[in-house]
């Protein structure tokens, strides 16, 4: 198990270095003079000099990359242009809101998705199964930002039950979390249905039933545990989906998180802040996938033994 963990950790290092490289490259894509574009016409010479020095655009790519990795490793992501504060501070202010939103959405998607998928698989072709399958097709096809607006119209404007946007009380969390959760919920429900259905056809399930194990236990202990790996993989991937969706959801609901910060940074042409936000999202995604990988080892000891 230990070698498995160490191996996975080491494999994540080149990916992280690559992610930093790609994020650095995005500023490279800006046509024309990036510094002039970012600071505008009225910038002071000191500000221009400082940004030029930070970006190091006159140095060779490799030198810049090594410098950038070094700064990122020390937690120096530069200064945001709009607020003139360290980017790290801005990100630190915004990430708890995003974490709250994405965790709430993940819990909703996982709980409701697995429950719906299991019920569908245990009673396939029932009325519930039909409704759940059609519902999940719609869930996958609805744009997140649109679902959010429709929920606002219905539950905040027509029926004034919930707030339109902003953050504060738990009631503020309901609409954004549900909005963000819906596509993932649909995916999880589909995946759970198909993997539980598959497992229920296995010989060991037939054996368990034959020896008189209660159906409830067959589903909970035999089917669900063995169906857990594909479901877990999907949840790991859905974390990435949720982060991207958070950018849209936060914009719709004025949720003060990383996504909204990022969109603001784009419109202010604050590429230093944008780089920092993209980097944080990507790093979080790598770490989550690493955690999912490690969880395989726990769920299925065969994987850990193979390394």
């Amino acid at each position, binding site marked *: 198990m230990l070698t498995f963990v160490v191996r996975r950790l080491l494999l994540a290092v080149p990916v992280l270095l*690559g992610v930093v490289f790609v994020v650095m490259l995005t500023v490279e894509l800006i046509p024309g003079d990036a510094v002039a574009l970012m600071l505008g016409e009225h910038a002071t010479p000191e500000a221009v000099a400082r940004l030029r020095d930070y970006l190091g655009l006159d140095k060779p790519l490799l030198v810049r990359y090594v410098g950038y990795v070094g700064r990122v490793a020390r937690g120096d992501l530069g200064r945001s242009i709009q607020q003139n504060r360290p980017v790290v501070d801005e990100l630190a202010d915004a990430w708890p809101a995003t974490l709250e939103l994405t965790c709430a959405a993940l819990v909703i998607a996982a709980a409701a998705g697995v429950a719906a998928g299991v019920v569908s698989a245990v009673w396939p072709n029932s009325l519930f199964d039909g409704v759940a399958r059609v519902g999940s097709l719609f869930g996958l096809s609805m744009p997140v930002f649109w679902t959010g607006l429709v929920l606002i*119209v219905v539950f905040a404007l027509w029926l004034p039950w919930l707030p339109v946007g902003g953050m504060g009380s738990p009631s503020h969390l309901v609409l954004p979390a549900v909005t963000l959760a819906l596509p993932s919920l649909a995916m999880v429900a589909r995946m759970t249905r198909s993997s539980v259905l598959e497992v229920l056809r296995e010989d060991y399930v037939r054996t368990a039933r034959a020896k008189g194990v209660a159906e409830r236990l067959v589903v909970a202990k035999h089917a669900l545990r063995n169906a857990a790996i594909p479901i877990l993989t999907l949840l790991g991937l859905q974390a990435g989906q*949720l982060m991207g969706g958070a950018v849209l959801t936060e914009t719709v609901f004025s949720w003060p998180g990383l996504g909204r910060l990022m969109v603001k940074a784009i419109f202010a042409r604050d590429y230093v802040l944008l780089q920092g936000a*993209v980097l944080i999202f990507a790093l979080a995604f790598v770490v989550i996938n690493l955690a999912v990988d490690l969880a395989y080892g726990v769920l299925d000891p065969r994987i850990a033994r193979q390394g």
Partner: protein
Amino acid sequence: MSERAAATLVADTWQRFRRNRLALAGLVVVIALAVAAAGAPWLAPADPAKQSLIEKRARPGEKFLLGADEFGRDILSRIIYGSRVALLVGLLSVAIALGLGLILGCLAGFAGGWVDVVIMRGVEILLAFPYLLLAIAVVSALGPGVLNTTIAVGIWGTPTVIRLVRGAVLTARESEYVRAARALGATSGRVLTRHVLRNILPTVIVYSTLFMANAILVEAALSFLGLGVPPPTPSWGLMVSSGRDFLLVAPHIATIPGLAIMVAVLGFNLLGDGLRDALDPRLRGQV
């Protein structure tokens, strides 16, 4: 595969596809979209750019079947024209993803060694970016616009195609029939076109269809954020975004174009699912 065998494959696929009602519904939606995009000037009841400030935010009714937007433009006409942007960005980004993916995937699979390692590490790195964020980063750097949106969406779809193609190349390389073909003196190019590409064709078709659905969603999302297609081009995402300010007084401006996005995405999803089941029942649940 001879001409006749190919014809049989298509006929077989159609036989299976035809029995799937959801898949047929998807096909109908996709055909309707294509017709709307191609025939927009004839189908649209009004000029999508014509403003009428006295009729701004008009509710759906006789003159404006789906209502008018904040500038008094006919929403139905704008939705019909919007299908052009959605399909154009979708098709071109699929082409980019397939083109790059085929080249790099074949290179990785056939060359092996360090070429393979470099390409596959690159794939892993691109896949490490959460959904939408890579596209946002690319577009915000390149600047908004149809072309840049397409490039961003295409790049986002490439890593998965590389993986698919490389996997197929590796499987084919080890298979008995490719060894036999090699022993008979077939060149790499022939092995590639006749054995590898033919084999992954069903998977590629299914992936492309499902990717179209995602590409339409990503384009709409970028346009919604103001990073995609610039106004006044009618784009569904942009229409939803501009209707946001009038949710209370005129909710139809934002919600109706969103329905168009959903129907289009649903159509491609249903078609993709149906094609997967019809083309190769073994693929069920894999793509």
